[in-house]
């Protein structure tokens, strides 16, 4: 092993008490930073998963006119070739064709505006995991063999009073009447019976959407098989997102393909920038810790003036003195940071399994689409980033002490009596 390296390492442990104080501070700071990042990342991950698996899917296809104006007649043009393409593309796991209509829902005791989505459960269950989010005693998902059913959220059930306020029991099979505008502007009325109740972590989504069988909705308007408004596409791998989207946009000029980052810009932004945000948090923590590290190193250098003078006298050149002090500072920083990262990782691993429930602390999370139970996690790459930052912090913190050491004059340093 390089002698200067080993001397630097041993120097870290010369004043054990003093070093351990800094190491402990670095450890606590790093652990806190890592865990905070893991917590936020857990949130963001859940949000993104819910965006992809429930709210949006990976890519949605529209008639460009429908995006400007959600008119009933702005169907997707050329469904047949598009469907053929979606079926043969092996990057695509599945897709679901939907009809979307804004409608007024009414029961004998309440009413609300809803986005009525007509879906085929066989297709829809591949694309969306919503069918898994049925509340306890909340009935069943849509079934092609049981026409006339509607799948609504717990929130909608409350609004429409299809939920008993006192007992919290759902009035399944209760009737909801929908009114909406047909192709020619005529008013259409159609009723459904509640078959199931869902609840996601996103209240806004819940308040907005209700699901019925596409054939039920189609017969009421009426629409034929090729008249659809939206195709939700789910991929095998999120990393193919832009390549598939771009390919569709290129091949089908009459189609607008939007990915989830465009459909849910908040989640898109987070997935792009969270990593930078974690690094900024770590940066702040390390910046604060750097002052403690600098202070400790300055004390060490001052104490060791005579020794450094001796080293320069016997022929240790400036760059080696610099290297020695820089390495010592990096080691001092690294030891605490490594333990801190391990502790942070351990906390993330444990709470990542058990989850942390914030529902008692904060009611408002779900209103903005955030789950109130968080499962912290962090990608391994994060630790590489942090390690790099720790090394850089060590190097930066060594500059001042190293400068101090290099300013020493061997004659002066050796004269001081011990």
């Amino acid at each position, binding site marked *: 092993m390089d*002698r200067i390296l080993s001397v630097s390492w041993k120097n870290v442990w010369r004043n054990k008490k003093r070093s351990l104080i800094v190491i402990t501070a670095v450890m606590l700071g790093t652990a806190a930073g890592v865990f905070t990042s893991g917590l936020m990342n857990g949130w963001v991950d859940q949000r993104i998963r819910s965006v992809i698996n429930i709210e949006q899917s990976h890519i949605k296809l529209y008639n460009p006119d429908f995006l400007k104006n959600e008119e009933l007649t702005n169907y997707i043009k050329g469904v047949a070739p598009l469907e053929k393409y979606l079926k043969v593309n092996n990057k695509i796991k599945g897709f679901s064709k939907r009809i979307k209509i804004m409608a007024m829902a009414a029961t004998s005791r309440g009413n609300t505006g809803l986005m009525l989505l007509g879906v085929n459960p066989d297709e829809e269950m591949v694309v969306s995991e919503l069918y898994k989010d049925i509340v306890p005693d909340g009935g069943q998902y849509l079934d092609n063999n049981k026409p006339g059913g509607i799948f609504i959220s717990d929130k909608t059930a409350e609004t429409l009073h299809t939920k008993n306020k006192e007992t919290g029991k759902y009035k399944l099979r209760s009737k909801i009447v929908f009114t909406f505008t047909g192709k020619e502007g005529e008013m259409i009325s159609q009723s459904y019976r509640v078959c199931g109740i869902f609840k996601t972590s996103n209240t806004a989504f819940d308040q907005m959407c209700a699901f019925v069988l596409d054939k039920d909705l189609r017969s009421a308007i009426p629409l034929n098989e090729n008249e659809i408004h939206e195709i939700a596409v789910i991929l095998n791998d999120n990393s193919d997102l832009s390549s598939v989207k771009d390919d569709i946009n290129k091949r089908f000029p009459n189609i607008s393909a939007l990915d989830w980052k465009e459909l849910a810009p908040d989640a898109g932004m987070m997935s792009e920038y969270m990593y930078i945000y974690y690094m900024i948090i770590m940066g702040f923590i390390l910046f604060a810790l750097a002052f403690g590290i600098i202070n400790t190193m300055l004390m060490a250098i001052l104490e060791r003036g005579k*020794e450094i003078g*001796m080293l*320069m006298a016997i*022929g240790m050149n400036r760059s080696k003195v610099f290297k020695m002090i820089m390495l010592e500072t990096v080691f001092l920083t690294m030891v605490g940071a490594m333990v801190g990262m391990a502790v942070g990782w351990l906390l993330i691993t444990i709470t990542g399994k058990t989850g942390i429930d914030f529902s008692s602390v904060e009611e408002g999370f779900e209103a903005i689409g955030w789950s109130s139970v968080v499962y912290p996690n962090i990608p391994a790459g994060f630790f590489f980033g942090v390690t790099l930052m720790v090394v850089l912090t060590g190097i930066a913190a060594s500059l001042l002490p190293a400068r101090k050491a290099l300013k020493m004059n061997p*004659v002066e340093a050796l004269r001081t009596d011990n």
Partner: protein
Amino acid sequence: MSVIEIRDLVKIYDGSAVEVTAIDNVNLNIDAGEFTAIVGPSGSGKTTLLNMIGGLDSPTSGSIIIDSVDITRLKSKQLIDFRLNNIGFVFQSYNLIPVLTAAENTSFVMELQKREKSLINERTKSILTDVGLSAKMNSRPNQMSGGEQQRVAVARAMASGPKFIIADEPTANLDTKNTEKLLDMMEEMNEKRGITFIFSTHDQRVISKAHRIIVLEDGRIIKDEKKQ
């Protein structure tokens, strides 16, 4: 053939209040293989002279030529390398690297010189054996007596293969017995390995061991006598 040629050497400290002429026009030659003591009362300029010979301090005027290199003209960077390869140092308060063992302290300068690993190990062993510390090779400075530490310091100074070794009051912190042991060992190294020693001292017993005695007073050489 002189290893050190000192010509018209002057060192003036112009401190805040008064100028002190610490070395006042010194001319001196030191030959290879000498065992020389620089003596004189406190403040006579012994340390100042040795520091300049050792390339740690620069003179106000004059030249110090070591093996035809005028070290007063070297830049500080070159001077460090020059010291590493040509001059050995022994200090009054031992000044070993506390985190390293006797063997590691001895190897250290050779590692700075980037010598070959096997050669370093071999040489370290032989030198430490010569100074009588073969049993203490793996001891840290705080596990050794002052006398033992100073012998490691001499071993370290020899290890780099210097042209001469400078020792400013090497026995000042040692008791009578250890002083004698150190001097005997240095003399043995001088005879056996042909190492040139220049040391300063106040101690009469140390002076009596020297082969040449240079007496300083107020920065001037007032006496220079060789024995035999």
